[in-house]
Every structure is written in structure tokens, then in C-alpha cells.
């Protein structure tokens, strides 16, 4: 196993970026590893770009991933993925949710949201593998099935992450999810995680 594994999670405030990073962090501790996670709180959280740097292994120094050193980029939103693409290592893997979240500037007409395909091909320039899926639409079905107001995109994406040669066992991540997610939502989130693992494994880049 690598000395230190770096996962950069990026998204929009309110999408569950912080919860996902905690799931990885606790799973890493359960696996006997050192962890450091950098979070953004306060002003920046209100609907703005949010990222969380998750690092685990042996001898983790900086709380922030050095540029070009992220093994995984887990993007909850395409543009937010591209915004942090320069953190990806050249042999890194980018996992991107294809569902855009339009900022107010786009509704106002002062900026226009780029084509998703262009965003994805730009991200591809920074990594060795791009796994892109529409996590939101897949999870919306799950949310309807469980009549939940919350769409479990974060646990689904964790499942995709776990399927990509991830150094922490799926079993440990599942266990963490069932421990830290409110009881009534555990079943839906585990199903989302399993679906993410399945989709991640069968994903083909070509």
C-alpha cells in the first residue's frame, strides 16, 4: 500500500461533502491508519464551492493535499471537479457526478454554464482515468423508493470510490456508514453505497 493516500472531495455547500470525508476518515482510523482532513466552515459554506482534503496512511503531515498529489478526485458536481483538477496526480482517478448545480450567476444570465462533455474532457487531461456517472439521477430513484427528501449522492459516490482499487475495504466503509448516518436513513444509504460499488466496477471509460 502507498504511504499516504490522498482523496480530494469537491462540491457545493449542502451536498454532503463533509459527511463523506468523515466516513472515509473514520474508516481509515478503523483500519489502523493516521488521518488528516481539512474542511471549510463558515461563510464559504453557504451555497459556495466547498472542498475537503482527506489524507490517510502513515506519516501524514500537511492537512492539505499538495498540488498534483491527489490519488482520487471525488467531484459532486462537474465544474467543481474541474476547479480542483490541478490537485490530481498524473496517475490519479477522477470520479465525477455529471449532474450540474447552476450557480445564481447562471440564472442571472451573467455567466453561462459550460457543456458537461467539455467539462469532463477537460478533467480527463489531468488524470489517468475518469469515472463519470449521473449519481444524482440514480439516487433520486432511491430517494423516491424510500420517500426520503434527501438524495443519497454522497454515499453512492463513496461506493464508486470504494470500487476503484481503494485501499480501505468496502466492508469497513459500509460499517462506518451504518454507524454515523441517522438510523432511519441507514438502509437507503447502504443501498446507495452498494449501487455505487456495482456501477463503479462495471464502469468502462470507452
Amino acid at each position, binding site marked *: 500500500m502507498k504511504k499516504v493516500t490522498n482523496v480530494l472531495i469537491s462540491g457545493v455547500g449542502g451536498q454532503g461533502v463533509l459527511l463523506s470525508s*468523515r466516513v472515509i476518515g473514520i474508516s481509515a482510523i478503523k483500519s489502523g491508519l493516521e*488521518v488528516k482532513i481539512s474542511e471549510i*466552515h463558515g461563510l464559504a459554506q*453557504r451555497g459556495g464551492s466547498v472542498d475537503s482534503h482527506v489524507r490517510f496512511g502513515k506519516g501524514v503531515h500537511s492537512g492539505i493535499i499538495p498540488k498534483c498529489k491527489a490519488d482520487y478526485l471525488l467531484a459532486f458536481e462537474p465544474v467543481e471537479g474541474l476547479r480542483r483538477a490541478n490537485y490530481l496526480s498524473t496517475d490519479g482517478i477522477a470520479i465525477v457526478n455529471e449532474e450540474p448545480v*447552476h450557480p445564481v450567476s*447562471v440564472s442571472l444570465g451573467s455567466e453561462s454554464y459550460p457543456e458537461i462533455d467539455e467539462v469532463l474532457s477537460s478533467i480527463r487531461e*489531468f488524470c489517468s482515468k475518469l469515472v463519470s456517472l449521473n449519481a444524482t439521477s440514480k439516487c433520486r430513484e432511491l430517494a423516491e423508493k424510500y420517500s426520503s427528501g434527501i438524495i443519497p449522492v454522497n454515499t453512492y459516490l463513496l461506493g464508486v470510490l470504494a470500487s476503484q482499487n481503494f485501499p480501505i475495504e468496502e466492508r469497513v466503509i459500509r460499517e462506518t456508514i451504518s454507524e454515523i448516518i441517522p438510523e432511519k436513513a441507514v438502509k437507503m444509504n447502504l443501498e446507495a453505497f452498494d449501487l455505487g460499488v456495482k456501477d463503479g466496477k462495471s464502469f468502462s471509460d470507452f
Partner: protein
Amino acid sequence: MSARDAVFGEPGKIALLLGNEAIARGALESGIGVATAYPGTPSSEVADTLSYASRHMKLYMEYSTNEKVALEVAMSASLSGIRSICSMKHVGLNVASDSFFSLAYVGTKAGIVVMVADDPNCYSSQNEQDSRIYALHAGVPCLEPSDPQEAKDMTIEAFQISEKLEIPVMLRTTTRVSHVRGNVLLGEIIEREPIGSFEKNPELVLVPANARKWHKVLLEKIEEAKKFSDRTKLNRIEGNGGEIGIISSGSAYNYAREACEIAGVEADFLKLGFTHPVPQRKIKDFLKDHEKVLVVEEVDPYLERATKEIAHSFGVETEINGKNLLPSYGELSVDLVVRGIKEMTGKGSDYILLVEDRDRRLESHSDKLVSRPPTLCPGCAHRAMYVALKEVLGDSAIYSGDIGCYTLGYLPPLRGMDTCFDMGASIGFASGLSKFVETPVVAVIGDSTFFHAGLPALVNLGYNKSKVIVVVMDNSITAMTGHQPDPLTGLTGKGEEVEPIDPEKVAKACGIEFVRVVDPYDLESTKRVLEEALEHNGPSVIIAKRPCALLESRRREKVEKYRVLEDKCRACRVCVIKLGCPAITFKEKAKIVEDLCTGCGVCEQICPFNAIVRWKENEEGD
């Protein structure tokens, strides 16, 4: 959720704690009886964790009106023999500085730790000031942890130092210590009843004769602290025989360690955890052992100045680098430190070339990187109040603003704020400005800020009869920092219900005759009151009362949402342009995002064509 781990985690276990939670845990393991704070990013979770703890144990906890009061309350506990911690953000120490200096003079009986969190890069602040300068200025020892485990350990050590030297101790963090999560080994919590005894001492009256004595006492304590600084393991040398020496503290130390690994440089480290006073002998010896030294620290060259002073006074000729190779603003990062090391050693250029290539490549895609600044939440009543203000007073009025969620109203399309300087400045600045300009002047301030520093300014405004419309954005909570209670909430830090303080009565007592309470969701009535205030010949206070929409959306089970009737929408975009609500999108016609709509109904009042309507129960779906 992780506050629970910090409070109830079993001794001997490893928990994943935020730096701030680790500090709270360290304080609990030190047997504190009292915790006080005024919330402020990046310090808030220290207080939030202790507030949570105080609901389950004897600990007394309060969110005080402001940092100065918080420090005075903590000081009263300490002088009564009860260990206390007071937490705040860097700019909060400006507010508390008067008490801080007096506290340094009179010292303590039981340990007192002043936790101050700095915010390099201004993620949530109006400046980047370096609190270590305050430690130097007031003569208070300063500790700087680098990660969550150290944050907990140093908190415990800070209490011991405070009692040994009978002096307050500053625990200084930065965002990347306070908001980094990491492994923390938990120890035993000591529960302490907050009951002490205050011994009278005439010297606690800081009249000049006593103050002079205390100043001498303080200087003696600093001498003791200097010896301790050279003795303590908090200041340690790591490695020997390396090609360069690095002096560093806090999160900067972590970047420097990693930068050396990446650049392939063998460096020795002088890792400083006790940074005021600095360890003179250790720094001198470290300089003598190295031809070249790099001081790695964020923002101000505090350690660099001290190092150069020591080199000068001992005649050491070592080359000392610091801010000549590293920036004096913003946050440091590993690649910035690699750049500095590269200048000294010539190593690390492969990595820098890669980073530069990647940055350039990203820059070439900048047309796709739509900006995403933070915005007011859907249904936020501040948005409605700004709309009413703009409709009545227009763009020519001057909007003197303040610090809180409502500061986001300065962004387009609302553009409801022309100035924002510091806590309470909205009223103080407006109170002056209205005397010197002929345009209408409005002061916009949130409820927590109103009590924090707005009150003295309001007295000034009321007494001097400045013609200002003061708008109190009352959501009855300190929302931006994570919903801590304030004097309008009706809850204490311990979670006990109390009678809220009535801002209407307060305003009247400050000599304001025109005081009204409005519901900002009701645009017409709000606008009418604003028109009356504009006509009124004298100062006015309008309290815009509505609970925080974010909190309400968590509380409420079912919300009556709104939707756009497509055939009625004429695509005029008024709803989008006037409100900038994240729940309204536009593509040929306006559309309301159902997941985001909170049912505030302000857009319905704005639409000129009655195209926005409330969902009816019998009309599920489009």
C-alpha cells in the same frame, strides 16, 4: 455528531476530532469549570463542543455578548480558583484586548487559556492579523499546536503553564489547525463544579500605583517564561547534520516537512510549540549549527524577526531566510514552501515545473469555471428585506453594513451593502456619515452583532440624533457561525430557557422614537414602514423579524412550496434579477427548484404577471 465523540469518547480510544473539538476535549481533561466564548470562524467549534458538554455535566458555559465580556467572565472564574477557557477568533481579540492586557497584569489563580483562531487567507474574516503579536504585546505566553493531537495536548499543558506562572496563556491556532480533523487519543475527563471563592486583594484595583507594581511582576513572569521556553519539549530540534535548518510552528511546520520530502532535501527542524517568549538559547544553537536557515510561518514574520534579533545579539552569521522567499499574506501551502526551499538548495524544480504546468493547463479552461460565491439561502428573510430596502430607498441611499450572513447581500443582484468594516461599525459609521452627507443613510446589522458591538453606537446615534434608518436583521440566532444562541434566542449556552431581550425596548431606551417591527416576508407592509421611517425627522430602528430559513427548513416536516405557471410566465426575469434566489432558475421561462424552495412566498409578491403560485395539495406534479 462529532461533538459527542469529543465529549463522550472513552479514555484510551482514538477519535477522529476536529482541532477545535480536540481543544475542547483537552479543556475537559484539564478539569475546567467554566467556558466562555463569542462564536467566530474558525474558532466556533471549541465553544460549541463545550456548550454540548455543559448540557450533560456541571460545567458552566456561556456564549457571551462579545469577546470582551467573555474574557471578563472567564477571568472572574479564574480569579475565583476555577479553571476556565475563553475562545474567540483573531478579530475577537481586538474587542477583548482591553481586558486581555489587564488580565496579563493581574494574572490568575486557577489556569486560564485564551484560545484564539487566526484566519490566514480570510476565509471568513475581514483581515489576516497575526495573534502572536498580541501575545508579545500583552506579555502573555503563546502556544501553537500543529495538528489535533497537539491541540489537545497543548491545551492541557497551557493550563499547567498558566498556573505555574500565574498568567493567562494564549493558545493560538489557524484555520488549518482548528478545521483539520485527525486522530486524537482520548484521556480521562475531570468534572469540576463551577463554585469557587474570590479572595479580596486591594491590588486588583488597577489604579496607577497598583498598575505600576503589576507591570514589574509581569516582566518577572516573562523572564521565567523565557527560561521555560528553552527548557520545554514543546520546542524541539528534529534531525541533525541536514543541509539546511528550518524553524517553524503551527500548520506551517507540516507544510515544511512535506515540502522537504517532495524536494528531496535533508533538513533539520526547530519545531516551535511555545512561541512567546521564543527559546533564545535553542534558536541561537540551531543557527550556529547551520549555514542556512529558512523560517516557515504564515502571514507575519514573527519568528523571523525574533530569530534575526537573536542572531544579531549573539553575533551569529547564519543566512536567515523567511519572507524574502515566502509570501507575507494568505495561507502557505506545500508547493509555496518547495519554491522557497528550491531558492536555497536548487532542489525541487521537477515538482514546481509539474505544478506550474498543471496550473497553466487549468487556467486555459478558466472559461468553464463559472464562479460560485456563497449566497443567501433559499427563503432567507435577509433577501426579502434587501428587496424592500432597494424598492423604497433605491441605489442612491448609502447602506452601511455589518458582519454576518446578511453581508452576502452585498453581492449582485441585491447589492444592498456599500460598506462593511468590523463588528458594530454599521451603526457607528452611519451615525457619523448621516451628519456629513445629504443622501439617506441606512445601517444594516444582524441581531447578534447588534448586541455584540452595535449597542454603544446606537446610544451614540440616538443621543446625537443622527438621521439613520437602522435595520436590525433579526433571525434570533448567530447563524453564520453555526447557529449559536444570542440574547434574542431565549436559550443559554447550557441550553436553559431564558427570557429573550426585547430589541424594541432597547432601541427606545437608546432615545430612538421611531421603532417598528416588520415581517420581511410581507413586502408591502415592510415597504410602508420604510417610507414612514424615511419621512420621520430623526433616527429610526426597524426590526426585521423572521427566523433563520436554514434552521426552519430543518425543523419543519412539510413546506408549502411555490411553482411557476408556464403559460403565465412572460420570461421578464424580474424574479431572478430582483431576488437572486438559488431556488429560482431560468431557461426560456423561470422555474422553481422544488428541492430548494422553502415556501417563503416572496417571489410570488415580486412577479408582475402573477405567474408564481403556491402548490395546491390536489395538484401533485407538473
